[in-house]
């Protein structure tokens, strides 16, 4: 009886068994890596804004406090976007003719809001409160990244649940003294874990992880 398959099929069939495991494993890993990549999370993507507002200039070079514009961050769940009047406190005096700022002036003239595009938008099924985080020693830059270095604003974190849990499971890795919360240039000390553990105790940080903390 004639052979149906060539001899090389012996090798090929063995290779294909191990190969299949390898390929499936590699595919799974690739998918996971892709899901974490900035390409998929759009982490570093700059979104179009009505005015090319620079945090680097305002918060970094000029050193304006975060709370000057995001005034409700200590009292409310929402940090707050400034009304045009806040912009005009300075820009009625300086750069009054800059073409770049025309939308701001137009907004002030017509009494209409500037329509900023949200950069850090959490899904609606997640409850998040800024006030509790800043009052327990979590700094702005912990979540928002090196904001004082962003010419145009982008999201620094993935906003994945793992990203939230990273800190909720080990707050001592991220907590800082309350006095440093709004310091845009804060660098964690070399003994962060040690001092962090002390602060966790001092601020009574509870490391909340059950579902209904955020998914109410």
């Amino acid at each position, binding site marked *: *009886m004639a052979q*149906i*398959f060539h001899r090389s*099929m*012996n090798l090929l*069939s063995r290779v294909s068994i191990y190969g299949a495991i390898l390929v499936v494993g590699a595919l*799974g890993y690739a998918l*996971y890596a892709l*899901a*974490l990549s900035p390409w998929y999370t759009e982490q570093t993507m700059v979104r179009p804004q009505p005015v090319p507002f620079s945090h680097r200039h305002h918060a970094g070079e000029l050193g304006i406090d975060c709370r000057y514009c995001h005034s409700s961050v200590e009292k409310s769940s929402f940090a707050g976007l400034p009304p045009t009047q806040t912009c005009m406190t300075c820009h009625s005096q300086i750069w009054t003719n800059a073409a770049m700022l025309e939308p701001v002036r137009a907004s002030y003239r017509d009494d209409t809001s500037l329509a900023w595009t949200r950069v850090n938008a959490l899904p609606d099924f997640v409850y998040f409160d800024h006030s509790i985080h800043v009052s327990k020693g979590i700094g702005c830059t912990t979540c928002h990244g090196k904001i004082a270095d962003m010419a145009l604003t982008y999201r620094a974190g*993935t906003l*994945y*649940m*793992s*990203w939230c*849990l990273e800190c909720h499971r080990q707050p001592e890795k991220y907590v800082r003294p309350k006095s440093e919360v709004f310091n845009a240039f804060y660098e964690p000390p070399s003994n962060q874990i040690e001092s962090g553990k002390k602060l966790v105790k001092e601020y009574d940080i509870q490391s909340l992880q059950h579902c209904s903390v955020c998914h109410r």
Partner: protein
Amino acid sequence: MDPQGSKNIVASPEPEPIIRPGHTFETVTDKISAIVLSRGTTPGWAFGLLIGFSLLMLLNLVVTLLMVKGVGIWGIRVPTAWGFAIVNFVWWIGIGHAGTLISAILLLLHQKWRTSINRFAEAMTIFAVMCAGMFPLLHMGRPWLFFYLMPYPNPMWLWPQFRSPLVWDVFAVSTYFTVSLLFWFVGLIPDLATLRDRAKHPAVKTIYGIFSLGWRGSAVHWSRYEMASLLLAGLATPLVVSVHTVVSLDFASSLIPGWHSTIFPPYFVAGAIYSGFAMVLTLAIPIRSVYHLEDLVTDRHLDIMAKVMLATGIIVAYGYATETFMAFYSGSETERFMMMNRLAGPYAGLYWMLIACNIVIPQLLWIRRVRRSIAFLFVISLVVNVGMWLERFVIVVISLHRDFIPSSWGMYYPTKWDWATYAGTFGLFITMFFLFIRFLPMISIVEVRSLVHETNEEKSHS
């Protein structure tokens, strides 16, 4: 003890042979492989496939609609959030159990008669589990997120809730499917090689050649084949019990009256085997007459399966009796109400139909003439299939529609899409089964040959 007593015992009559005498290795191989290789595509087969495929397309339609509009197209409304989807899931998965029992437990118990029916019973298991598995996925509402049920590394850093029986279900059913498929495939390998060697067309040869994994029938191959079958039988044996146990825990671990009961696991397993054997009979009776396999699947097979049905049916009846007794004995007001609601509530008609189908009518199987009558057996097997479906409906719907708070009572009415989904899974089952009997040997050639060998040996010794 009278030492002479043993001589006085009347020797039982010569047991009926499992397969009809007169078969040799060659006739067995010829007969079974001819169905696949030389019988060709008959109009009857094509017509059956057409019906199955049409229903499968109906399933396609329903699932598409379900994806677009959501589970609201079904009749599930609070308080009855588990409707047809769960009823059908439990029903289909129960049917699968007979195949595993026949192929695994009866193999370990050296029940020779299983060899003629185990192949298509296992195929039935696999297709039934496929139909069953669809329902919980579709019932989730967002089936494309089904992988949330698996513990896989994910950017949410989240595990499934391991304390939930619904998660156990995922593991139980997927293990069941995997082991059944492997067991079935390993058993098929020597037969696929036979088909490969007997096929004329080179393409057919190649396809069977690929799936027979280079089987040459050497002694090493056989010894490994035997070992693999034995190991898989060992693996599959606990699954006969565990899968439906876990399914029953979906109910039993809740607090709903009529569900919260420790009898559920054994009673579900017995019910599963009951419905499974009914389905094997429903399939075996027409198949053996269409393909003239009466000498391989003999009346004795049907008789034995009828006895298994009778036995498991009695266990199920005991389960119903215990449920009813415990409802009253518990002293719990809600349990008692649930039982009264079953016996005389708005769905009482279905409950009494269930009693008729599952307990009363199958008692006819005590009579040998009924067990030997093809028509009677076929009808009873259909009746039991209906009865077991009703049982799941009674458990799911009657317990849910009126529970603790009368203000939140309601009624459950299936919609046309509920029926269409159910019919659609029949389409999947029929399509798969027709393709199976056309392209694979529906009876294990190898095992029946060994049966012929043993029968002939016994004869030559005596």
